[in-house]
């Protein structure tokens, strides 16, 4: 058994070495811990006994929900899509570490990219009116008295477009988005919370880096 875990440790170390080249905000030890955490999560997931290439959508969403307190399905799908760079419906170990690097410790630039990707629901590199409407549709209390209950949302979308659409093409390109966020940082998560807050970052890092160290 000890041979196994020694073997395992060795594998993890090599893996960590390669991966940490791509995840710049973690050091090697931290990457090791993240791999372990990944394995733990993966282990919980494999009920059928069949090996899978990574975390599936359901598992990933429950992580987002339970650990980072996210609730919006659409946003969580977007986050999954952003993590799953190769679009194979699984978050691989590499994607996991790289994704978390931005998710937990990303620079403003990285996070702008990340958020834009989350909000670009159809992956056409633009956030369109329809996508905004979709993401914002539950954000206002509907006034039952109003003729068109969606009127408020539509108006909000227009207001937002007016503010962020610098090239006036009726949709947000990445440049539009980046420019707006640089001007007003609050717009980073303009269409829904897709980044963790400080408290959940702290508790996650504590859980992964500290508690495992103590084991």
């Amino acid at each position, binding site marked *: 058994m000890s041979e196994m875990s020694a073997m395992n440790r060795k594998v993890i170390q090599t893996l960590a070495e390669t991966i940490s080249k791509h995840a710049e905000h973690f050091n090697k030890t931290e990457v090791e811990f993240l791999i372990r955490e990944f394995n733990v999560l993966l282990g919980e997931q494999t009920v059928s006994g069949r090996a899978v290439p990574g975390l599936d959508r359901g598992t990933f969403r429950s992580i987002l929900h339970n650990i980072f307190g996210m609730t919006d399905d659409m946003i969580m799908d977007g986050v999954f899509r952003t993590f799953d760079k190769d679009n194979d419906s699984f978050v691989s170990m590499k994607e996991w570490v790289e994704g978390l690097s931005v998710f937990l410790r990303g620079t403003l630039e990285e996070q702008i990219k990340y958020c834009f990707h989350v909000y670009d629901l159809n992956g056409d590199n633009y956030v369109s009116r329809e996508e905004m409407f979709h993401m*914002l549709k539950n954000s206002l209390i509907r006034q039952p008295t109003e003729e068109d209950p969606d009127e408020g949302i539509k108006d909000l979308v227009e*207001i937002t477009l007016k503010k962020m659409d610098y090239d006036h093409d009726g949709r947000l390109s990445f440049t539009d988005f980046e420019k707006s966020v640089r001007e007003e940082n609050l717009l980073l998560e*303009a269409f829904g919370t897709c980044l963790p807050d400080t408290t959940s970052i702290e508790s996650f890092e504590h859980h992964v880096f500290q508690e495992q160290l103590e084991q």
Partner: protein
Amino acid sequence: MGLSLTRAAQWTPASSGTGKLESTPMNESLLKEILSFAEQFGSQHPQEALHVFQEPLQWSTTLMASDFKTDYDISDSDVQSNERDSEGLPLLQLSPPTVSVRSFSQLSKLVHLAEDKKVEEVQACLEENRYPVVKILGSIVASILQGEDTDTDVLSLVDKVKDQGKDSEVKVKLFLFLRNLDNKLLSKCLEEIAGKIRLDPTAVKNEVDSLKQSSIEGEKRVLKSIQYTSDYIFSNGCRAPPWRQVHGEMCYLVIEPCDTETLCVTCSTAGVFLNGGVKQEGEESGYERTSDVHRDLRTLLKSRSPHFAENINTQDFAVQEPPSTQKVQHVEPVDAEERGQPQSSYEQREKNVNENARQSLYKTGGEKKYEPCPRWRNLGLTSPCGEAEEKKRSKSSGEEKSDGIQKRKRGAGAKGKMKAEFSASSLPGRPSSQKIKTSAGSMSLDAFSESSSESEEEEEQPERRQESNTDLPSEYWQIQKLVKYLKGGDQTATVLTLCAMMDFNLMQETCQLAIRDVGGLEVLINLLDTDEVKCKIGSLKILRKISHNVQIRRAIVDMGGLQSIVRILDSPVKDLKALAAETISNVARFRRARRTVRQYGGIKKLVKLLDCVPNLASLSANQEKDVEVARCGALALWSCSKSTKNKEAIRKAVGIPLLGRLLQSPHENMLIPVVGTLQECASEESYRIAIQTEGMIKDLVKNLSSDNDELQMHCASAIFKCAEGKQTRDLVREYKGLQPLASLLSKASNKQLLAAATGAIWKCSISMENVAKFQEYKALETLVGLLTNQPEEVLVNVVGAVGEFARIPANKAIIRKCGGIKSLVNLLTGTNQALLVNVTNAVGACATDMDNMAIIDQLDGVRLVWSLLKNPSAEVQSSAAWALCPCINNAKDAGEMVRSLVGGLELIVNLLKSTNNEVLASICAAIAKIAKDKENLAVLTDHGVVPLLAKQTNTTDDRLRRHLAEAIGHCCMWGSNKASFGDAGAVAPLVRYLKSKDKEVHQSTAMALYQLSKDPNNCITMHEKGVVKPLIHLMGSDEEMLQEAAAGCVRNIRLLAQANRNAVLFN
């Protein structure tokens, strides 16, 4: 019925005896009311109706015997009722044309019989029975009941009148009925008033408040007092009793001007005029007008009190922006177009969001809604006035117009609802005239306990409201929409909306007020209490901008928003802390806000923000944020430090060393708030010491050479305040601060900077070494150039500095050569007291030079200085008197010059009656100089200088003793003055002066004693008091003058003793 009949009803001028009721609509309606009361009384209260009146009501009737039917005993033209009292006398008796009635049952029957003539009957009855209540109940009972009518209930009334007869209970009931009628009548009158006359009590109130503020406060007061005759305020804001409100009168004031007799003033819709002396509510006489009607209080006072007229103009700023006291929050201004207040937005706001919590906060604002006292509560006064108020409001509020009309139409039926709305609209938080300070009648001083060193203190001003008649700008509607989304949005929508709101020009008043008026302020403040960091950041980003607006600041404080902002200072998020501190720096521009910050522990938290390392060469992103937080903290402290108690709180929170550390920052934007705070706080002794001991002078001096005017100004002003201490002055020189100060004199265009720089130079030049140093930079020449065409705050300092410089003889010549003497003499005609003190000092210092004196004399400077003795300020008096001493000493032909000043000597002698020791000392010094001229001494003596000087001899103040003794010594030289001093008991106290430790006192006392000892009686007194021993001691002094005087005195005593012995021996 008493009140309404005597007061509300309009009688023809011959109102005594048998006056006639004028036929006015109001009287008619009154009559109708009384009539229906009388008519129904018999049926409604049969038992009370049987009560026999104390005296019959008698009047000439038009009724004939034929009009009476059954129940009456008719014989010829006379009629007697069958109904009789216990003694068998008829209750109704008619012997044309007189009818007398003795019970209500008969009265109502009679009214029924009169049919279409009943109104005339009632009128005749009332006209001939001016005090029906007295007749009905008897004068004793009536007066008891009248006296008790305010808040006693029926039972206790019954108790009161028990011993007045067994039918007292009925009497009380009757009385209560009558009183109800009275009340009903009065309220009807008020309704009519409200419909007809536009009473505008707020205007009067504003004016009175502002007069109180500007006139009674402070040294330059123009009035002794201004008081309302009554503390009671009716719900429509008037203080006059309703029966006077009918005449458009709103309140009565008793004003004591400084120079004339007390004025009793009536404020009415027609204007302001003097009355016959309404000093207390309820006195019936004295309402008559006894003067012309003036437009407002100010004009009236100007015409009555010359002192007021003279001084009120110097306070023009106070007149234009009347600051209201803190407790009277937001007095709404009165002009119709300014009152326009979109009521709907308030109501809407009231309904919306979180109100309960907020409102309870509002209420802690120390406000009380005025409750009508029970007597008036049941009059239903509230509603008619409410209606009136509403009418007024709807007049000006365009969008409310139709609504208002509707409400009016609803009339009496909707009173209940209207009341509710009325009280809703007068909820605190809505500035309205209904909010009246309970003790408005007298000045409440506690509101001002928090002093401020800042002259540009922002006072709470009456609110200006935009005209709602004009079209609202499009921003208004857009902001209203955004606020709607804020209220109904989740975090994402909220942040988006906040970002959209930031795109408006939030520095523009339209947008600022729009946010408030659509209820956005509440939402923004609410967001501060959520857990969403982004929402808080967004909200604060807006609040920090709109809080540049005075009204918004006040609204934030009123809503309890400041507490939330202070709480955020504890947040771990640095952006939030910085934003919160920045917002506080804007909000805390007025006293109440600063107090709130302190009371919620804000000062401590702000001081904590200052903790950072500001002067590292390279900062990490994190450290940079810390510095930004500290900068914002300093900004907030700067605003807060304008209150004395906050200065103390900053010190207690160990803020001074932190400020000292930040002072080493290389960045101007950090230095300005830090130095600003320090110079603000340097008004406190503790800070001045700390600034010096913590080594901040060095940094302050360093920043004097900054190229930022504002920073230079604050540094100079900090040095100005700190250089009161000698060590600080030396430090400024050691750190080479004098040169930059001198070079700041060239920035003559920036007056604030110039004032601060000249102030620092003035204080620094108190040290002679500094004056010498300044001379290296030719500072005096520049200063003399600044003696003309400068604002007063600069002049005060420049003159102060010139005065200090002039203590060095060489500088006196420089001042003369630069033409400074003429400028100084010209300044003697000013009115600013601080300036006059310094100018007289400087003139006095210059006058010690003979050449200078010649110029001063030529310019008639002595007369000008002399006339300043008439200045009310003791400081000016004394410095003028000090200045006179060298003038008299050095003037050619001084005696003639002094004599030429008509009344001058009398003036100076009279100042010996002052209670200020410094004034006394200076006057004594001047008298000593004047008395050197014999002729003048004679005049002084005639004016009674001797007893006045003698009276002061018991003082223990050495400075005064010295000059007093000197004056006495010189005054002895005339006539029998020596003996007079002895008679006035001046000798014994002078002997005691020899025990003083002050050498100067010894010298002048010895001189005085020497002069006095020329009178034998004085010698005896001196000897008795044991003068010889100390004098012999003084003879051993090094001072020749002293030796001589002491020896001379002893010799005189000795000679007397010798003569005595000889007399004994040879007789």
